C-alpha cells in the first residue's frame, strides 16, 4: 500500500465537548456540564497524544484544530499543554496552523491573547448571525454588538481569523441575507464559513420540524438563490469560494480543513472524534471514539485504546475521497482516485458528465463546474453508479 497520506497531509483534531448552552440547530457532540475537571481533561488529551505519537512515528504535523463544543471554554494552559506535547512528540511543520474555535462573547474574547501566547495562530468565530433577534432564535448567548467587538479583538490577537455565519434561517429573505452578507464582507476577514441552516434529526430544531413547528424556512428555490448570491458576492469581495461553504482570499484557506477535503491523514482526539490515517503496511484506518465525555475521559486517563477502528476498503476510500475532494474548487486527481479505489472511474460516465457540463476535466483533475457545486450529491451519485 502506498503512503497516500503524503498527498493530503497530516493533522491533529482535538474535540472539547462542552458548551455553556446547547444550540437548537447543532448536532455536534456537545454537552452542557456544571463542572469540568480541566486538569483531568488535560492529562487525558496528553496521554492520547502520546499514544498516537507512538503509533505514527515520523509524521509531520501540519495543523492542530481545537473544535467542539466550545473550545474557547478551555483553560489557555490546557491549550498550551496540548500544543507543547504535540511539538515534543511529533515533528511539526514550520508553518503549522493552530486553530481554535471560539464564541464571540466578551468573556471569551478576553482570553484571546492568552490563547495566542499558548501558540494558537488562527481563530474561527461562531458568529452565526449579525442581528440580535436571529441570534436569540439560534440559541446563541452573545449579542451582535458583542460579536463585532470580539471580531475586532480576534483580528488583532491572531495572525489569521475567520468567522461562521448560518443563513437560510427562519423568515430570512434573499434580500435580508444579501444585506447581512454585505455587512459581513466589510469587516475585513480573509476567510468566511457560510453555512445554510440544515435541520438535523436529534436536535431541538429537528424535533420542532418533525412536529411541523419550525415555520418560516426558505423554499428550496430561495435557499438556492441565497447560495448563488453568496458565491457571487464573496467572489466580488476577493474571497472566492474554495469549498462548498468556505470562502477565502488566496492563501488564506484553512489548511486544517484542506487536509480533510484532500483526504489527508488526521488523528481525532476527544469524545466522538473521528480520525483517518494510513500505516505504510496497512490500508487506511477510520477511527471513532465513544461519544460520552465521561466514558472517553475514563478510558483516556487509563491509557486504554478506546476508539473503534475500521480498515476502509478500497471502494470506501474511493467514495470518501470523491465526496470530500469534489467539495473543493480545485477538484480531485483521477490518478489518486485510482490508487485509492483500486479501479478507474467509469470513462463513460465521466464523458457523459463532461458533455453535460457537470464536470470539467483538466488533465488528471476533475472539477465540478460552478453551477453544479450545490448539486454535489446528485453528481456523486452518478459518478459512483455501478
Amino acid at each position, binding site marked *: 500500500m502506498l503512503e497516500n497520506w503524503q498527498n493530503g497531509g497530516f493533522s491533529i483534531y482535538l474535540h472539547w465537548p462542552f458548551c455553556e448552552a446547547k444550540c437548537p440547530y447543532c448536532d455536534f457532540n456537545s454537552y452542557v456540564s456544571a463542572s469540568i475537571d480541566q486538569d483531568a481533561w488535560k492529562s487525558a488529551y496528553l496521554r492520547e497524544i502520546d499514544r498516537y505519537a507512538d503509533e505514527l512515528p515520523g509524521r509531520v504535523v501540519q495543523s492542530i484544530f481545537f473544535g467542539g463544543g466550545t473550545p474557547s471554554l478551555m483553560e489557555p494552559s490546557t491549550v498550551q499543554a496540548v500544543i507543547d506535547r504535540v511539538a515534543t512528540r511529533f515533528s511539526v511543520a514550520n508553518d503549522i496552523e493552530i486553530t481554535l474555535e471560539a464564541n464571540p462573547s466578551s468573556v471569551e474574547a478576553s482570553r484571546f491573547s492568552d490563547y495566542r501566547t499558548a501558540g494558537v495562530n488562527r481563530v474561527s468565530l461562531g458568529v452565526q448571525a449579525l442581528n440580535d433577534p436571529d441570534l436569540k432564535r439560534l440559541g446563541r448567548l452573545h449579542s451582535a454588538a458583542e460579536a463585532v467587538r470580539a471580531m475586532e479583538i480576534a483580528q488583532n490577537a491572531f495572525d489569521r481569523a475567520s468567522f461562521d455565519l448560518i443563513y437560510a434561517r427562519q423568515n430570512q429573505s434573499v434580500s435580508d441575507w444579501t444585506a447581512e452578507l454585505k455587512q459581513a464582507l466589510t469587516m475585513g476577514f480573509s476567510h468566511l464559513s457560510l453555512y445554510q441552516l440544515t435541520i438535523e434529526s436529534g436536535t431541538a430544531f429537528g424535533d420542532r420540524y418533525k412536529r411541523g413547528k419550525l415555520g418560516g424556512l426558505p423554499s*428550496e428555490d430561495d435557499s438556492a438563490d441565497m*447560495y448563488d448570491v453568496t458565491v457571487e458576492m464573496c467572489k466580488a469581495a476577493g474571497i472566492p469560494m474554495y469549498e*462548498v461553504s468556505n470562502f477565502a482570499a488566496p492563501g488564506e484557506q484553512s489548511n486544517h480543513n484542506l487536509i*480533510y477535503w484532500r483526504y489527508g491523514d488526521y488523528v*481525532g482526539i476527544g469524545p466522538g472524534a473521528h480520525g483517518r490515517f494510513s500505516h505504510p503496511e496497512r490500508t487506511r484506518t477510520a477511527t471513532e471514539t465513544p461519544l460520552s465525555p465521561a466514558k472517553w475521559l475514563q478510558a483516556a486517563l487509563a491509557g486504554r485504546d478506546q476508539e473503534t477502528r475500521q480498515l476502509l476498503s478500497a471502494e470506501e476510500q474511493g467514495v470518501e475521497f470523491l465526496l470530500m475532494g469534489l467539495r473543493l474548487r480545485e477538484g480531485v486527481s483521477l490518478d489518486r482516485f485510482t490508487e485509492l479505489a483500486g479501479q478507474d472511474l467509469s470513462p463513460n460516465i465521466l464523458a457523459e458528465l463532461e458533455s453535460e457540463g457537470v464536470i470539467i476535466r483538466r488533465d488528471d483533475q476533475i472539477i465540478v463546474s460552478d453551477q453544479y457545486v*450545490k*448539486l454535489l*450529491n*446528485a453528481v*456523486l451519485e452518478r459518478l459512483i453508479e455501478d
Partner: protein
Amino acid sequence: MTQLSHIRNFSIVAHIDHGKSTLADRLIQETQTVADRDMKAQLLDAMDIERERGITIKANTVRLDYTADNGEKYVLNLIDTPGHVDFAYEVSRSMRAVEGSLLVVDSTQGVEAQTLANVYQAIDADHEIVPVFNKIDLPASDVDRVAEQVEDVIGIDASGAIAVSAKTGQGIHEVLEAIVNVLPAPEGDPDGPFKAMLVDSWYDAYLGVVVLIRVIDGHLKKGERIKFMSNGAVYPVDRVGVFRPAMQNADILGPGEIGFLTASIKQVRDTRVGDTITHEKKGATVPLPGFNPSVPVVFCGLFPVDSAEFEDLRDAIEKLALNDASFSYEMETSAALGFGFRCGFLGLLHLEVIRDRIEREYNIELITTAPSVVYHVFMKDGSMTELHNPADMPDPSTIDHIEEPRIKATILVPDDFLGDVLKLCQDRRGIQLDLSYAGSRAMVVYDLPLNEVVFDFYDRLKSVTKGYASFDYQLEGYREDNLVKMSVLVNDEPVDALSMMVHRDRAEMRGRAMCEKLKDLIPRHMFKIPIQAAIGGKVIARETLSALRKDVTAKCYGGDATRKRKLLDKQKAGKKKMRQFGKVDIPQEAFISALKMDN
C-alpha cells in the same frame, strides 16, 4: 364414521376484529381438540399475511368432538371462510358445505358492514343462524342494543342470542350447546353413490394437493378411485382424514362429514372449488348445482426490481400458481421494466396477497404495473382479440370497436354516507340500477365498468364511508364504449408500464391527474423533466418537474466522512429501487400510486 344426527357443520360470520378467530380458538380449547400447551392465538389462520391483516384467505376447517349436556357425543365441523369480496365465490361454496352459522357481533361495536355482506351469504345458503354477542367483558358492551340492531338491520330473530367473552371463555359452553341443539343435522343418503363437494384445495409439499370436501351422499375410503365431474379426471385416493386442526387420517368419510382427501394430485389447478367428486365406478351421474370456476378479472404486470431475479420470480410464480387455481400468468416483456409476468387475479386483494407473498416468502422485490381488466377488441376484419395489457393495443386504425367488462355492484351503506357513495359511483361512470332502504341502511345497486373499480374503488369506498360500506359485485358481461389507450411520456420517453385504457371522456382528467401525481412521485433531477399524457400522438396533459437546485450546502469536515459515505450508500440503495427511463429514475411506488385517482 359418525351418524348424520350427531354431526353439526357450521361457519362463523363476523366483521373483521369482532373476534371470529378468538371464538374459534376458544371452541377448539373448550372441546380439548388441541392440548393447551399447543394453543397459539388464532390457530386457524396459517399464513403470515392472513395473521397480519386479520383476514382469512383460504377456507380453514377443524373438527371438534363434543359431549353435550344430554350425554351424547357430537362431531362439530367448523369451516372458517374468507370474508373478502375477491373471494366471494369461495365464500358462497364454503357456506353451501355447512348447515348453520354463528353470527358473531362485537357487543361494543354493533353490526357493521361486513357482517351484513357475510350474513346474507349465510341466509342465501339457508343457514340456521345463532347470534353470538362477543366482548361482554368490556365495559362498553351493550348486548340489548346489539340484539335490537340484529333484528332491525339483518332481520333475524335475536332472542336465542348468546352473550360471550371469547377472551375470558364466558358463554363458550352455551355456544357449543346451541350448535348441537339449534343447528340442524346434515342430510344425506348413506347408501347412495358417493358424492362430495370440493370446498377448497391447497398444495402441501409432502402430500401433494390436499382437497377439502364435504361428503353429501355415500362413503369414501382410502384406495378407492374417484372422479372429478367437471373434467372427468380420475385419481386413486391415497388417504382420507379430518382436521383437528392438524391433519389426522381416518378410515372412512361418510355423509355429512367434512374432511380431506389426497390422491397424488400434482396441481391445485386440477381441483376447482365447487366441483363434484364421485366414485369412478358406479358414481353419481348428476353433479351438485352451481359449479362455476372463477376466472381472473384483474391483470397486472409483475417485474423483478433486480432483473437478475427473473428466474427466481418465475419459480415463485409457478409455485404459487400450483396452489391457486384462480391465479394465472404468462411471460411479458416491457421496454421499461424488462422481463416479467402478466398475471391475472380475482381482484385487487388477491393481487396484493400474491404480490406480498412473492416479496415475503421468496424475497423478491417487485414492480407492479397498473392493474387492468380484459377488453374485447373487435377488429375491422370482424375478428375479436382479448386485450390483457394496454401495451398490446393494436393499431387504432384497424379497430372497429372495444368492449369492456361491466359489473353489477351492490353496496350497503349507512344513510349518512349515501351521498358520497352515489357521487363515487357516478364519477366512475356508474349507472344506478336500484336504491332501497333497510332500516337506516341504504342498498344501492350500480352498473359499473370494472376498469373504474380495479384501481382504488374499494379503498375510496372505504374511505368515504369510514369503513361502513360493504361492497359486492358480479360480472355482468361486456359492453361497447369509447375506450382509448393513454400513454405516458417522461422526459419524452414513453413509459409502457404506465399506459392505460381509459374512457375518452375521462382521458383528459385522468391524464392530468396522472401527470400531477408523477410530478410528486418522481424525485427532482439535475435537469427539468416534462411529464406528458398522450392519446396516439396527441398530448392531452402536461406537467414539468423543475430541476433540482441544491442538495448540498451543509458543512462537511473530518467527522462527517463516514456519515456522508453511508448516506451515499443509502442513496445508491434507494436508487436501485428505481427504474431508469432514459436519464430519469422513477421510483417503484410511482407505478401503483400514479394510478390511484385522488386522495
